[in-house]
């Protein structure tokens, strides 16, 4: 009887079934969930990033030609060789100069585009997409388009066709280092590919500036345009600007794809990474020297980044 009476009646939840109790063992554990979701990435990071970095550091102290498991320890010889290699040191100097030019140029262009797009009253989404779309294009594909259709040295190259209308002779844009027209090809390509991405960062930052600031400035008599931009917009974009410059500096030193495809086998306009590619993975297959070069390059990027951070105050608290 009692059985029948209890059947079908909802029993009060026992103390043991309290919400605090983990459901089905570890599933409710936040520690378990943390490791469940982060471990694939941590494993990937370890296997594909930290182990190769450590291995590369180890290789840099060994003679490692045609092998990644060398046995002959050579100390700092590989570093000495790389620092004596005029091609490698030349590439470091060239790309420091390149960074000095391309970083402000990309910064200015992307900020300009962001300001332009932010003020548009119509077709805003269209123009944002137009400027952002090149970011989705592969560097290799873009480099080949630039090289084979736009800046080809023959009469049917787009630029030579246009110049031909004005009676200008065909220009060998990439084959001839004198005059160095190849920089025009590289810089236009890089600006086209990168400006859209940084424009989005600036756009987000612009939209975060409180409109009250502009209203207060207007009440105080600030003129719209340059004065407002100089004293309100620009200071408000400081954090984003610093981050953008940091990313651009690193990107300038890590340039590879477009240079490799545009200037294959030249001795000019060769970035450090292409130089290291030819040392480690190309004809020489010298993983020892290649790794030493990679360490030197990493240290250079670190120094430049820290110096730039110190100069622009990256990471410095605003209230200090």
């Amino acid at each position, binding site marked *: 009887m009692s059985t029948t009476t209890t059947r079908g009646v909802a029993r009060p939840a026992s103390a043991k079934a309290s919400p605090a109790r983990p459901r089905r063992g570890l599933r409710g554990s936040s520690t378990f969930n943390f490791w469940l979701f982060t471990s694939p990435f941590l494993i990937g990071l370890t296997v594909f990033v930290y182990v190769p970095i450590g291995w590369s550091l180890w290789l840099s102290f060994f003679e490692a*030609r*045609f*092998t*990644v498991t060398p046995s002959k320890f050579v100390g700092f010889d590989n570093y000495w060789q790389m620092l004596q290699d*005029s*091609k490698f040191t030349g590439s470091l100097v060239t790309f420091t100069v390149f960074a000095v030019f391309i970083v402000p140029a990309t910064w200015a262009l992307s900020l300009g585009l962001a300001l332009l797009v932010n003020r548009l009253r119509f077709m805003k989404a269209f123009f944002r997409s137009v400027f952002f779309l090149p970011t989705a294009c592969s560097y290799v594909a873009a480099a080949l388009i630039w090289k*084979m259709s736009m*800046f*080809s*040295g*023959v*009469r049917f*190259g787009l630029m030579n066709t246009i110049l*031909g209308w004005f009676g200008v*002779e*065909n220009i*060998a*844009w*990439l*084959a*001839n*280092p*004198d005059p160095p027209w190849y920089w025009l090809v590289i810089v236009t390509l890089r600006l086209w590919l990168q400006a859209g991405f940084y424009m989005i960062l600036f756009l987000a930052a612009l939209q975060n500036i409180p409109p009250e600031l502009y209203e207060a400035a207007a009440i105080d008599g600030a003129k719209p345009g340059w004065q407002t931009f100089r004293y309100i917009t620009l200071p408000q974009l400081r954090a984003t600007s610093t981050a953008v410059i940091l990313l651009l500096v690193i990107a300038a030193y890590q340039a590879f794809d477009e240079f490799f495809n545009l200037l*294959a*086998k*030249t*001795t*000019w306009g060769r970035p450090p990474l292409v130089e290291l*590619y*030819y040392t480690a*993975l*190309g*004809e*020489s*297959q010298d993983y020892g020297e290649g790794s030493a070069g990679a360490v030197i390059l990493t240290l250079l990027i670190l120094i430049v980044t820290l110096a730039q951070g110190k100069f622009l105050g990256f990471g410095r608290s605003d209230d200090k």
Partner: protein
Amino acid sequence: MSAMSSNWDRRSVLRAAAGLAALGPLAACGSNNGRSGGGSSGKSIKQYFHAYGEAGVEDALKRYAKGYDKAAVNTQWITSADYESKLFSALLTDNAPDVFEFHPQIQLIKSGQVADLSDIIDPVKSDFNPADIASHTVDGKIYGVRMIDDPQFFFYRKSVLEKAKIQPPTTLDELIEAAAKLTTGKVKGLFIGNDLHAVINPLIWSSGADTLDAKNQIAYHTEGVKEGIKKMRQLFTSGHLLLDAPTDYWDPSAIVQGLTPIQFCGMWAMPVMQKALGDDLGIFPFPKVTDSGKQSVVNGGWSMFVNAKGKNVDLAKEYVKWLWIDQKKYQEDFALSYGFHIPPRASIAASATKLKTGLPAEGVKLFNDFGHFDNIGWTQAMITALEDVFANCVRKNGDPEAELSKADSTVNRELKKLFG
């Protein structure tokens, strides 16, 4: 209810992901993964080829591989311009090819990357071009099977030169003069490739020098070579050289499209040029640079090697023997049905009727009279060192003596590592 739904969704997602993961390998089984043939042995071989420019070569190689019944042969067709980089990197991994094509280079032997193939070649050694055997031999052992020989020379439009009253140049000065006379409007007189690298060795040989001598010491650093480099600089700055063409010297497009009447190229492109230009086509070797020099022809080509560190060395050797020694019909097809190449086997060359008359026969004659073969001691690092000399002197107006001295230190360092 909502909680249950949420659980169900998560499970669904996990199940779907697991299902996809499980289906991956199954899908791979059914897809075209490049593997052909196979037989029932369950064994497999992986072979690497660079992408040939001539249409049909890839299909032909896969067709040959399909005919091998002792193992499945997976052909990797590498379209990148940096075939050597991909190959060298792959050779360090477990995913390395068992069989690959490349040029004979001693570094591959010194680092134990290629297997000794003497046992499969020795029985037919006398049927091979002796120069090809010599270029694959180190300490009496033969390390590769030559598949094709590729002579490279200048192709020219007979009618254009006749109209300008120009004879095929026999000296570098005449070539420079011809380029100037043939440049009209948007047509440049001469094309020797975008980076000029293809003519480095011919320039050295035509100056009366060599890359290395018989004792494996530097032989390129001579007054003749320096003079040649200076003349090349004169040609480069003359405005009569086609630069920055959409395709490089190995592709016949420049001469076929009328961008130039003289182009340096390989015999492989002869059928395409003949199809486009008919009989209006002639050839001449790289001209003499100095009085003591002699006209020259690069006898390039490709050879088959077996990865000595691979998992299937014996099987790979058996396959190489089957395809590149026993299957003469395939070798003839490979040499003559797509582009024109000279078969390294005397018996196949003798029956190659396509090379017996006309322009191909002239090409064979230049190959025999002026040809220089691969030097196994001349490695990629040394090749790059001289490419840098060309880039810095011819294209950047550097001092030939200083640049050659710079190359000397790289080459000597390399020689020391290889020969002690």
